[in-house]
């Protein structure tokens, strides 16, 4: 039981990717197992991946970010809406907005001492309001054809957005795996008090995590805007759950201190293959929603049970000493 839980917890993403490819590959080989479909999947997950990376970083530090969806939608709207001032201004504006939301989230959590999900729930609501006011609930359409390069273009057979994601993957891998600032995030997520006593600046770490999350959500927004060459208020409605699902499938824990960027990539890949396969098989929308919900419930429950088991073991070990 313990081994099974551990296996499910730590390698669920890779297992899921493996299982899904076999399942969809055998049920729809003519459409699923083709080069153009894999390119499709790569394109699709590239839009979500930055946001999931951000969510993963926050989860590792023991937080959670519910505001990623509205941040992403607002960044997409800014990337389109600010184009009259020049595309670089629009993109920088969008990224700056994401960073700003991250700073506000970080301040609310570190200085305001508000629990992460309550604070980000508030900013989510606020940013949603800004988005509705800014767009007047209308769709915005881009005016700069060159802007679509990032989300829609490709270099050889590889989508540009996928290369952007790979670059971020490497950068964050280095940060979390090898830089002190990144390693500190694990310490903060694992045990805040111990980290503090060990000389880690907890507040700085949390600020970094939320800023990265806001920025990455904005990157997702810019890529989506570039891919669609438009933006609407409906964007990102399911993003909070999707990003948390992907990160949890990738081995993160709601209790903090666990996970990695590579695993987050596998998590978003698993969800991408799942969506793609269900679409190819013609599964109705509401069944797709139900499947995603069931997956989330399953991983949240596994996360809780595995954490409970690990804590019980720690208690036992302490008693034996």
């Amino acid at each position: 039981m313990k081994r099974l839980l551990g296996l499910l917890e730590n390698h669920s993403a890779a297992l899921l990717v493996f299982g899904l490819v076999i399942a969809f590959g055998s049920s729809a080989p003519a459409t699923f197992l083709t080069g153009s479909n894999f390119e499709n999947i790569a394109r699709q997950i590239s839009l979500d991946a930055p946001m999931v990376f951000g969510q993963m970083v926050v989860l590792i530090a023991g937080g959670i970010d519910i505001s990623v969806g509205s941040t992403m939608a607002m960044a997409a709207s800014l990337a389109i809406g600010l184009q009259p001032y020049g595309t670089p201004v629009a993109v920088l504006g969008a990224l700056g907005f994401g960073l700003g939301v991250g700073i506000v989230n970080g301040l609310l959590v570190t200085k305001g001492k508000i629990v992460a999900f309550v604070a980000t729930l508030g900013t989510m609501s606020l940013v949603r309001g800004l988005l509705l006011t800014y767009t007047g609930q209308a769709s915005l359409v881009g005016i700069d054809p060159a802007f679509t390069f990032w989300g829609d273009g490709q270099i050889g057979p590889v989508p540009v957005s996928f290369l952007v994601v790979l670059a971020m993957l490497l950068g964050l891998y280095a940060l979390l795996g090898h830089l002190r600032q990144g390693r500190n995030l694990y310490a903060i997520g694992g045990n805040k008090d111990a980290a503090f006593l060990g000389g880690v600046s907890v507040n700085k770490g949390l600020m970094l995590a939320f800023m990265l999350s806001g920025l990455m959500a904005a990157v997702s927004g810019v890529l989506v805007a570039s891919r669609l060459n438009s933006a609407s208020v409906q964007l990102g409605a399911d993003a909070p759950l999707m990003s948390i699902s992907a990160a949890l499938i990738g081995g993160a824990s709601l209790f903090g201190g666990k996970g990695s960027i590579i695993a987050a990539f596998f998590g978003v890949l698993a969800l991408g293959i799942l969506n793609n396969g269900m679409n190819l098989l013609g599964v109705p929308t509401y069944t797709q929603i139900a499947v995603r919900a069931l997956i989330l419930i399953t991983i949240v429950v596994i996360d809780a049970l595995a954490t409970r088991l690990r804590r019980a073991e720690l208690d036992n070990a302490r008693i034996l000493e």
Partner: protein
Amino acid sequence: MNSQEVDPSRRPDVPSNKAPPAKSGGRRRHWSEPLRNQTAVVLLVVLVIAGSLLSDVFLTPRNLLNILWAVSLLGIVSLGQTVLLLTARFDMSVAGVVGLAGIVTVLAQINGFGLIASIGFGLGSGVLVGLCNGVLVLATGANPFLVTLAVNLLVYSLALSLTESKTLYATIPEFNLIGRGQLFGFLHYSVIVFLALAVGLEFVLRRTIPGRTIYVAGLNEVAGRLSGLRLQITKLSAFVLCSGLAALTGIIMTSRINSTIASSGFGMEFDSIIAAVLGGTSLFGGRGGTLRTIVGVVVLGVINNLLVLLNVPSEAQQIAKGLVFLAVVLADSALRRS
């Protein structure tokens, strides 16, 4: 959860034993002391004064009744949410339940069931979702926020498949009376239901053992368990109550317009939490009550009403809601630390 420490400042109605004013004779009570925990009341007074200055029609009985009517549905949901918040848990699935209950009620009518039976089916669907939420969260210790958010999606997809994404219309004419009918020609039934439920629940919370147990569940589970309180069944009841009241809301909402769609409750999950917290119910359990939630809900209603009267675009209401929520949560957090 089981290593929760007792924080004296979080006990309801128990004076903090940290600094009893009598002991420190020199320390005068701060002038704001009676106003603490009453952020919403202060806010309401300020808003009403501002409203009467800014608009001629604001302080008319008709407008005030309109505000009550507009918030009564959200109010009923918020009451259930308040009870659940007292146990330090949430229900994000109320949005889906509001839609589902209306749909189940209308479907029962379409299939030939009577008025009472169809309402029974609607309420039953809510109770079932509540049981599902409660068992999932309580048996595994999983994060209630995410579990109920996922259950919300499940319920929504069920509602979508039941309606095939169409609008459904009620078939029993008397059904419309529940949502449209008025007592004495001016007081809507939904307002009466909301206020009666708030008072009734406050009484249960304050004066009965199950009610007090709810507070204990939010404050100190270990102490509650050691005192032999039936915590698990109480917490499960809170989940069921919350979903049940959401279902009631869905049924009344459906009867107002005689039709329903799957997404009719969207946004109510956040708004009900905002209203409860605004009223002064803590997000961390054990502090608050349903009477406070009336104030919280009315404040939200007054803000919306004023923005409409002042011709502020409806999109800005969302900004106002977000700002008010953050302000209240910050105040709540500052209060807990002081």
